[in-house]
């Protein structure tokens, strides 16, 4: 199957139906391994056992940002190339990205209380992550409240592209401003500063969460394609009734 064939929703659905059980199984296996390694990882010499929150918090932060990146690429597909599946991909990614951003904020808060002595501070990293959650809610509101789905999709695509400005702000906020949040310790030019006994479980958990994201995203895209079919058929039925009544 050529890549261009995936532009056809029916062919895309066939592929998704084949892929989903394998993706779900791979996700479950990676989570089993990741949780086993994460819960067995040694305590941090400064933070003690609270470092275990990192195995949830960091992957959730990465996926919250990746979700918005995916929506921005999909927005280009909607506005520039008018790809039939681009808006479906963007709309399906929004609630999943929002959920991961929410997990990141709440687990970060629960990690902050014993580590920093406070649940929340208005520093640049925390605030820019909260802005990301609000942007997600804005996109969801546009999708859910627009009377004309086409107009809603275009408005959501524009907001997705504008909101992409926030991604480098989140990433570099800890370098550009003085923050209570620690600077980057994994994705850095000079390599990770975390000991392998903690880094390896973290990377396995990150892979598991990433697979979960794509599994949920493909399933949500399949649902969205079916929802659009339902809408088309309901409109056709309504038109038939109107013609019969006239």
């Amino acid at each position, binding site marked *: 199957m050529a890549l261009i064939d995936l532009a056809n929703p*029916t062919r895309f659905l066939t592929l998704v139906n084949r892929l989903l059980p394998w993706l779900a199984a791979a996700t479950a296996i990676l989570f089993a391994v990741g949780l086993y390694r994460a*819960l*067995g990882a040694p*305590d941090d010499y400064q933070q*003690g*056992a*609270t470092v*275990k*929150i990192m195995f*949830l*918090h960091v992957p*959730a932060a990465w996926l919250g940002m990746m979700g918005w990146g995916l929506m921005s690429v999909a927005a280009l597909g909607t506005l520039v190339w008018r790809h039939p599946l681009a808006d479906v991909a963007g709309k399906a990614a929004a*609630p*999943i990205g929002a*959920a991961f951003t*929410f*997990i990141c904020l*709440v*687990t970060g808060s*629960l*990690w902050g*209380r*014993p580590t920093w002595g406070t649940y929340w501070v208005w520093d640049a990293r925390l605030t820019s992550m909260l802005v990301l959650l609000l942007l997600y809610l804005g996109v969801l509101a546009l999708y859910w409240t627009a009377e004309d789905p086409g107009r809603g999709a275009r408005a959501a695509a524009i907001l997705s592209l504008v909101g992409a400005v926030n991604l480098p702000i989140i990433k570099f906020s800890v370098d550009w401003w003085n923050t209570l949040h620690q600077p980057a310790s994994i994705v850095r030019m000079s390599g990770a500063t975390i000991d392998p006994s903690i880094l390896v479980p973290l990377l396995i958990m990150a892979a598991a969460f990433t697979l*979960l994201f794509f599994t*949920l995203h493909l*399933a*949500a895209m*399949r*649902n969205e394609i*079916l*929802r659009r*079919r*339902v809408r*088309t*058929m*309901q409109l*056709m*039925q309504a038109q*038939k009734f109107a013609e019969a009544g006239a």
Partner: protein
Amino acid sequence: MSLGPHADFIIASYALTAFVVAAMIAWVIVDYGAQKRVLGELEERGVTRRSQRETQS
């Protein structure tokens, strides 16, 4: 495995994450079932999409 003096924070983090992940999984499964049911009902009433009619003819 000892979770130390801040066990409540660690357990709350894992419980919340498990809840949100379970909610997302339930959402895609329930939504899929709902869309398939409505599609089935519409097809039973003889409503077909244009592309379906072209395939059938």
